[in-house]
């Protein structure tokens, strides 16, 4: 029982309120949603790190060995954690949401520690920024890519791959559980949802296989397009996860049309998400065509491509589609510096980046589904202004959405925009100009990475001040998964303030009575 008590204490110290139970072999297991999630994440990151270390052998053996050792430790910790923890069957929504935030924070801390421990990054703040950029699939970096070893390049891409996987698992497995009937994803994609995820566990297994298979397919296509093995692996990981890390400092600028064509198609597929992939794998063309979200996504891509091709001098349709796909899917690959594209591109790409990819993908942004529903929401309110007594129902894929779901959508959107606005203000205070600050905030919250202005198309943070980098890291994490946990913290703070005020008032009244008496 001693071990169990220790585990429980550990959980309670981490604010996780765990419960100790006996496992099948008489082992004590901690029932903690957060610790179990963290153990799962680490047990994926560990072997991936080992593979990156082994893949780097022969290039810079010091880095390779250091990462292999770090990976082995992480694997051990992850497996031990999985062995000693268990997901409780019944868990409060608040605990799930706080757990999501905790897992992300802990993972960023772990990755930053690996960067520091292996000597790949020298400063703590740079390590945190690099870890946040990787895990949130945001294509910005503090590293000098030309000087980085093969191991570091592979691992940087691998962190974004793990981050992408976590993002999809959280979106499909955890959030619907926390949000119940108002979870947009489960509510609006009901038939596809049931088909892909008959049960949560089976669905998540299918998703993992799809994700891994898509990554392998991307890497194979890059190999076929003429890229070397390391380049193909790095770009395959970066494309499937919408991470956008490249093994070149100038991203896709040095590659030919074949590689760009592969990247364009793969980025569009990655931004479309696992439901579209599942439909394609099962050969359900009608199912795909009926998806309003997919049609909206393709319409945004087509519109952005058309505006770029027509409005930007010297940009061909292929490069316009590449850029639009990169930004819409929030991947972040680039074929050239964006300043040459001009203001037209800055305007249209800002909108595309803000909307982002489809729900169920590893990409970021407001998401195409939400953008479509927000347009429908605005239209409903306009119609109501005209006919105050009209009953106007907002539908998605022929399913009516309840007021509560729309209400949550409105609140989420306001919070999302508030985060972007607040981030832009902070970036301005940290030394960025207005266009650069606005673009960088949108890009970071959408987990895109590249931005017009100080960051540029290739995502180098050399021209960005250190406080601004930390703000960017916070925005990436907030944009990736933590808007709801962040809001929960604010909610808890407000509740605390209210209870303190109430207690203060009560004490004041009691003091007054005592004085009167």
């Amino acid at each position, binding site marked *: 029982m001693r071990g169990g008590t220790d585990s429980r204490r550990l959980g309670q110290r981490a604010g996780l309120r765990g419960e100790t139970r006996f496992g099948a072999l008489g082992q004590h297991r901690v029932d903690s949603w957060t610790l179990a999630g963290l153990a799962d994440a680490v047990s994926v990151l560990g072997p991936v790190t080992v593979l990156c270390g082994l893949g780097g052998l022969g290039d810079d053996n010091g880095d390779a060995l250091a990462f292999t050792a770090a990976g082995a430790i992480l694997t051990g910790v992850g497996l031990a954690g999985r062995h000693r923890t268990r997901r409780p069957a019944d868990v409060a*929504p608040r605990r799930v949401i706080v757990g999501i935030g905790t897992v992300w924070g802990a993972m960023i801390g772990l990755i930053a520690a690996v960067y520091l421990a292996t000597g790949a990054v020298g400063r703590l703040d740079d390590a945190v920024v690099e870890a946040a950029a990787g895990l949130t699939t945001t294509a910005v970096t503090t590293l000098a890519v030309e000087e980085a070893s093969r191991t570091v390049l592979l691992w940087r891409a691998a962190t974004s791959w793990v981050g992408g996987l976590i993002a999809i698992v959280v979106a499909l497995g955890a959030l619907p559980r926390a949000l119940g009937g108002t979870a947009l994803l489960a509510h609006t994609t009901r038939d596809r949802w049931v088909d892909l995820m008959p049960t949560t566990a089976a669905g998540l297994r299918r998703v993992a296989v799809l994700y891994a298979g898509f990554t392998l397919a991307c890497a194979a296509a890059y190999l076929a397009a003429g890229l070397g093995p390391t380049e193909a692996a790095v770009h395959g990981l970066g494309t499937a996860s919408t991470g956008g890390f490249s093994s070149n400092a100038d991203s896709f600028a040095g590659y030919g049309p074949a590689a760009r064509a592969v990247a364009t198609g793969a980025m569009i597929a990655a931004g479309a998400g696992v439901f579209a992939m599942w439909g394609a794998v099962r050969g359900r063309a009608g199912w795909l065509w009926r998806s309003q979200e997919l049609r909206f996504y393709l319409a945004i891509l087509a519109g952005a491509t058309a505006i770029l091709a027509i409005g930007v001098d010297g940009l061909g349709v292929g490069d316009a589609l590449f850029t639009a796909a990169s930004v819409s899917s929030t991947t972040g690959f680039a074929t050239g510096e964006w300043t040459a594209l001009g203001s037209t591109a800055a305007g249209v790409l800002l909108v595309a980046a803000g909307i982002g990819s489809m729900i169920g993908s590893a990409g970021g942004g407001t998401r195409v589904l939400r953008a479509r529903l927000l347009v429908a929401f605005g239209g409903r309110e306009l119609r109501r*202004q005209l006919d105050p007594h009209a009953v106007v129902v907002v539908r998605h894929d022929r399913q009516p959405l309840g007021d509560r779901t729309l209400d949550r959508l409105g609140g989420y959107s306001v919070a999302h925009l508030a985060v972007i606005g607040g981030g832009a203000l902070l970036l301005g205070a940290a030394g960025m100009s207005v266009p650069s600050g606005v673009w960088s905030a949108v890009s970071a919250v959408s987990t895109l990475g590249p931005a017009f202005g100080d960051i540029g198309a290739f995502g180098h943070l050399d021209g960005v001040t250190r406080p601004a980098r930390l703000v960017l890291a916070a925005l990436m994490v907030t944009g990736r998964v933590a808007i709801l946990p962040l809001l929960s913290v604010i909610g808890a703070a407000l509740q605390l303030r209210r209870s303190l005020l109430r207690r203060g008032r009560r004490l004041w009244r009691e003091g007054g009575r005592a004085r009167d008496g």
Partner: protein
Amino acid sequence: MAEPAARSPAEPGARPGPASPPILRRHRRRYSSTTFHVCGISLSFVSAGMLACALLERLTTDRDTAALAVSGAAAAVIGAGAWYLTAPGAVRNRDVFSAVGWTWVVTTLMGALPFLLAATFAVGGADGLEQVVNSLFESASGFTSTGSTVLADFERPGRGLLMYRQATQWYGGMGVVLLAVTVLPFLGVGGLELVSAEVPGPGSDRLTPRVSQTVRRLWAVYAGFTLAVALALFAVPGPSLFDSVAHALTTASTGGFSPHPDSIGHFGSVAVEVVMMAAMIAGAVSFTLHWRAITGHPAYHRDSELRTFMLVLAAAAAAIVALLWLDGGLGLVESVRVGLFNAVSLGTSGGFSNATGPGSAGDYVVWAGGAQMVLLFLMVVGGCSGSTAGGIKTLRMQVLGVVMVRSVRRTQMPRAVIPVKLGDRALAEGVVARVVGFFLLHLTLVLVGLVAVTALGGDFESSLGAVVGALSNMGPALAEAGPTSTFADAFNLPARLVLALCMVIGRLEIVPILLMFAAGWRRLQDLSSPPGRRLTAS
């Protein structure tokens, strides 16, 4: 403008229109059109201003007298004709949207005539089309009390025409007060519907039970406020009588036009800036609150919107001053002076500037990015509901904040029923949805406008500032469209037209201008449908 030619029987749900004046009852009117009727009234009012400015021009510089007189006469004839020949029809929402939208459009078109006839923009080889577009832009900026300008040569127009330019903003402000306090709450648009939801009864948004009385009192407050600002400006050293009146007209309306190219920087006087700041803040506060104070029932301290507005303004001003001071370029006193003035100017959607030239301390386009970002934030938020200020409005921002907090609490308690409260009262869900819908529409328009203006050749930073500024009726924007330059320097003709449209859309709180075609569209549908179905088409 396609309105019904024949009087139609009252349709279900329609409210009866006001009774005709006795003098007109003897004549049987042939046309029943709320839109034409309201446009006629509006043009008649504007014509009086044009003729008064023609008189001023005749008595002073006498350069543009003919242009003003001809325009005034034309506006009077058209306005009086439309007023006399039509009667307000049934008042349904769509008719009110149509009337409000078309009134601003027609007034803007007619208001451009004096500039066009006086060839105000015939400088630097400008062709006819450029003069037309510039005249329209200046008129739209005036009647929407925005304050963006394409006027570069301030020596060319006479004093009467400059005063007319100022008066367009005053008219715009007057229309906005009327719109915000009486018309839009009736439609559930203007933001004051929130106040009426908070404090039900005739004492909140409507000053009296009768709309006509309310309008008269509001205009009395507005006129008295303008007079007070003019007197205060005249009392401090610097501004002449002409300057005082001219600036009072555009301060009460939080417009921002000045008869001087360097705006308030022309005077170089702290006293003038203090008076202007006080006046701009007063202009950005709900006129119903001013009326209550005048009638001996001040409620400033009880108004949560005003408290929030002042808090935001103070915090923003403090942040700007700190950033300017810490940036190292300016001393503390100079930072306070320019930081405070510009924060108030843009936070109240005034749009005046105390820059004395490009690159001077008051020229905020050369400030650090953080300070400019705060100004951009203030431009978006705007002033209070029921005032002449633009922007999303503080009251709506309060509601959006509460909606956000409710989302958080629902995350923790998914099944809880949590009302959105403003003060102690819960808002109806319909009102909350309208506010969120308005915010989304505003955001959509910013993005659409940004894409349009940048696609038409505008630089990104200038376009962003200009679109946000136009929709918030702010005036000067960022970068090339800053306080020491004109919009003619920053944007080409099509972009200027897009921005003029944005100004009108923003001034009318977006919805009316988007729905102004609905009445005409429904009529067309009625006409094209078989006769037996016409009665059910509403």
